[in-house]
């Protein structure tokens, strides 16, 4: 955690609530992106991000300033997403991607139509690949391979052990490979 963040945390804890925004501002996009990849629904992602920020504000006193604020925030988001998923979805029900047209436009906002198309494909492909994973595998895969956290950090965020992370990561990577081979054979052809 850098010095500026430490100062902001201290200010918030002293009652200066306006210091909370500059503290979380650098992570607002990362939080929403991770929430979207976990929930696969932009409205849910917004709710999860809001819930995570509320909890972060509420429990800021418990944060150890020697550790990474981003990791701590990600850990809260993971819990919020997990609880949101359990509330919103009855056990056994599948997950469905639902983006409003405006969100779709926003997600693909770029000037190049060809790139737009490619990104649309990539987005659905990424989401599709993630759909084949269990909740824990998805969390581990997103944190380690997409957010590029280390194994130790991933374990810390998920309050799990490094061994458990390795096991889930290995399974997730193999499933992703199989998923690409099944669903996107044209991409898999390009591997060789």
């Amino acid at each position, binding site marked *: 955690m850098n010095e500026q963040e430490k100062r902001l945390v201290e200010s918030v804890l002293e009652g200066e609530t306006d210091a909370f925004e500059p503290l979380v501002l650098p992570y607002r*996009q990362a939080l929403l992106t991770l929430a979207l990849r976990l929930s696969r629904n932009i409205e849910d992602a917004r709710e999860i991000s809001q819930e995570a920020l509320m909890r972060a504000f509420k429990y800021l006193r418990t944060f150890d300033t020697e550790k990474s604020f981003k990791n701590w925030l990600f850990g809260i988001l993971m819990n919020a997403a997990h609880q949101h998923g359990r509330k919103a979805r009855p056990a056994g029900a599948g997950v469905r991607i639902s983006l409003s047209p405006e969100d779709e436009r926003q997600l693909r906002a770029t000037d190049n139509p060809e790139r737009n198309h490619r990104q649309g494909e990539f987005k659905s492909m990424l989401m599709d690949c993630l759909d084949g994973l269990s909740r824990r595998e998805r969390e581990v895969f997103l944190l380690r391979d997409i957010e590029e956290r280390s194994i130790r950090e991933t374990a810390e965020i998920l309050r799990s052990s490094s061994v458990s992370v390795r096991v889930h990561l290995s399974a997730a990577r193999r499933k992703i490979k199989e998923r690409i081979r099944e669903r996107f054979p044209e991409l898999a052809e390009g591997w060789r």
Partner: protein
Amino acid sequence: MTCRKARSLTALMAGGDFVGRKADRLKKHLGRCAECRREYEDIRVALESIKSIAREEAPPEWRETEWKEMLGRVISQEATRRKAALSSPRRHPVPGWGYAGAFLAVVAIVVIGFVLKNERGKSVNVPVTQKEPIVIAGVEPSQAGQKQEKTATVRGPEIPKPAIESARPQIQSIKASPKITRAEKAESGETMTMALVSQDTGLTVYWVFNKNFEWKEDKK
């Protein structure tokens, strides 16, 4: 290293999460085994593809007004919560050892109460040992004292059993007499002496019990 073992580790190695001595053994195996090498390569390329897809995708963005509104809600809710916490009487959470202590205290009170109750019961049942001479109706205190000290000895001439038997109805009648309620008991060592005095005839009967409650009779 076997192919099965190698397959379980290739996914980790493909993402750069498997290093060290075992990784060297795995590399050697991959150099020898074409199948495992292909598996490793497939996972590595799949990972690279998915990472580049993730990097290229346009991340969702907060609309500025939406972000401000959301943050405003977060801050105002927390501020309200803090105000409410300050205005409401402070609750001191009871720690775990507090509950355990309270439980032990209750148990201790119950046990002490039970023990005290038993002690009281015993003091009612067991005759009180008296140091001073027992005052027995119709008998001088000094005599009573003497008798208390010599509880183990039977005073006077030996009374034959039939005489004791014949005396029993009299004693029972004495017990019935209200004046005889002053009959005293004394305990010395392992024996207990009981004196029964008749107000009408002046007859005094001493009963000396040993610890087995066997008794001897002495009449005066």
